[in-house]
């Protein structure tokens, strides 16, 4: 049981559906203020993107944010240094691609992230078959490996993926990269398959962009992840107050009776 399992388990035990906004580290100089704003708006956990030059699972919005972050000199070290200085009060999950952590060194990367307060990672290009090495390092260092289940994942494979996923299972609502289309899509069916296989919380992402969609996602799952819709606002210059207000809108929709 990782710390992320405990923290997110407590969220579920309290009867709350989790809201997990995604923000790209370094996309703007004030990006850590945006994390604080998202927490103020009611986030239960935050997904923090570490930029990679070739983000295979991301659509145009997050690509743009990654390129902006890289142009500003963002690195794993710079992100960890800034995160380490914060006290956000909610769990942080880093989302990046294999090469960023491989190049840094698996043990070194896991240690550096955990030391900065990150409790889990999502590496979308690290499928089950290649997971062992990273999972061993993460298990030893109390860093959760959050895995994805897609609409194309066959049921017997769902069970194997969910059994290896820590903290939560990322339920992809559609066969698409991030930010390409909106709506709950196949989210309900994917969550059902995860629940049939595992007690790990299932959070829906990829297509959750509005309060209505967040509400629909939270109605069928343990949580909702909102990425591109928020990052678009950040890239368009939204103030921390506007970010807070957008996240609060999602929160209220999820919690409304």
């Amino acid at each position: 049981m990782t710390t992320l399992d405990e923290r997110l388990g407590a969220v579920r035990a309290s009867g709350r559906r989790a809201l997990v906004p995604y923000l790209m580290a370094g996309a703007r100089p004030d990006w850590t203020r945006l994390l604080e704003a998202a927490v103020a708006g009611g986030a239960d956990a935050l997904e923090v993107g570490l930029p990679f030059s070739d983000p295979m699972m991301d659509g145009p919005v997050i690509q743009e944010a990654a390129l902006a972050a890289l142009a500003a000199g963002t690195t794993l070290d710079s992100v960890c240094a800034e995160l380490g200085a914060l006290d956000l009060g909610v769990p942080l999950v880093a989302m990046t691609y294999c090469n960023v952590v491989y190049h840094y060194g698996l043990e070194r990367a896991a240690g550096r992230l955990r030391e900065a307060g990150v409790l889990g990672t999502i590496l979308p290009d690290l499928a089950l078959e290649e997971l062992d090495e990273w999972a061993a390092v993460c298990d030893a260092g109390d860093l959760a490996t959050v895995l994805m289940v897609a609409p194309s994942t066959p049921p017997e494979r769902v069970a194997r993926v969910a059994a290896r996923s820590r903290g939560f299972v990322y339920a992809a609502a559609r066969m698409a990269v991030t930010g390409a289309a909106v709506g709950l899509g196949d989210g309900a069916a994917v969550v059902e398959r995860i629940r049939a296989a595992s007690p790990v919380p299932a959070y829906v992402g990829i297509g959750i962009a509005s309060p209505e969609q967040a509400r629909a996602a939270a109605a069928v799952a343990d949580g909702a992840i909102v990425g591109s819709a928020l990052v678009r606002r950040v890239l368009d210059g939204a103030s921390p107050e506007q970010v807070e207000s957008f996240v609060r809108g999602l929160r209220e929709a999820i919690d409304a009776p």
Partner: protein
Amino acid sequence: MSVMGPPDGRGRFGEFGGRFVPEALVPACLELESAFAEAWADPAFVAEFHETLRLFGGRPTPVTPLARLSERLGLRVYAKREDLAHTGSHKINNVVGQTLLTRRMGKGRVIAETGAGQHGVATATAAARLGLECTVFMGEVDTRRQELNVFRMELLGARVVPVTSGSRTLKDAVNEALREWVTCVADTHYCIGSVMGPHPFPWMVREFQRVIGDEARSQLEDLGVGVPDVVVACVGGGSNAAGVFAGFADTSARLVGVEAAGGSAIGHGAPGVLHGMRSMLLQDEFGQIEEAQSISAGLDYPGIGPEHAHLAASGRAQYVGISDDEVLDGLTLLSETEGIIPALETAHAVAWVAGAAGNELAPGTTVLLNLSGRGDKDVAQVRALMRGDG
């Protein structure tokens, strides 16, 4: 694992290869792996593959003794003439195999990435022949550099999508093709253009290309040459090199892959993960992928097929870099001495042979040069470079 045998169960060649893709694509990669393994073990499929290459693809391509070049260099140089294959390069071998497999899997559409346009044109060609729908992703920069190839693909009934993400060149075209594949994997095959990507692609593409090496081996026997001392080929992703090397991996022939100096994944790269594979990659100190820089768009790729990374690490093959200036000399040398205008990619291999003659290559050394493609596509660019306004 035998040299250039199948990869291990995880799709690894030594420490390279594997399958680093989003979960959404894993079932399709597994399906493709078993579909290819079954097809390649099915004599009827293999026969149809070779029959198609013979009746449609222009195979077998000859091995030509290069008499005047040999005399000039003091070597015995033979060329495997992939430039004479349909669409002008070895690319046709791979796309014939993959489109036949697409049909066998019951899929009606292929997508592909292309840099200069050679693989895109080849894919559009093979798709047209089987009546498959075809979409080709091409960096916006490349669509401007290679307008004529865009039109060729359109003539062949394909849709060309300009890629505006990232550096807008080949590596981004691969990213975009992978992103598209996630959305349509149930009815669409990703016809990847080289020995790269997630397992089983590097293995499958090498198997479809090994016809080059297998033919050349028996043709050199027939010519009384036997096994050459050296087999040399240019390497971007490395499919023509993998194909020709496969025919000689179990011999004493020295295998040489020639990279563009500005895109030298073996020479200047480090191990990493990109486009579904672990291989040698050009990257900065933070693991961000760098852009390759080469006179030839076909070698403008920051990575290399994982099997080549393994052949380099194990020492079975050697990889060298050739600068843009040497490439033009190689192109004119072959054109003037042999009446063959090679593609700029191929000219890298010619340039290495010319430079190595008399030092690394002792007089009388027999060399098999894989003449991977013809230079027609590059003539306008070469003219501009020679006039100094390229």
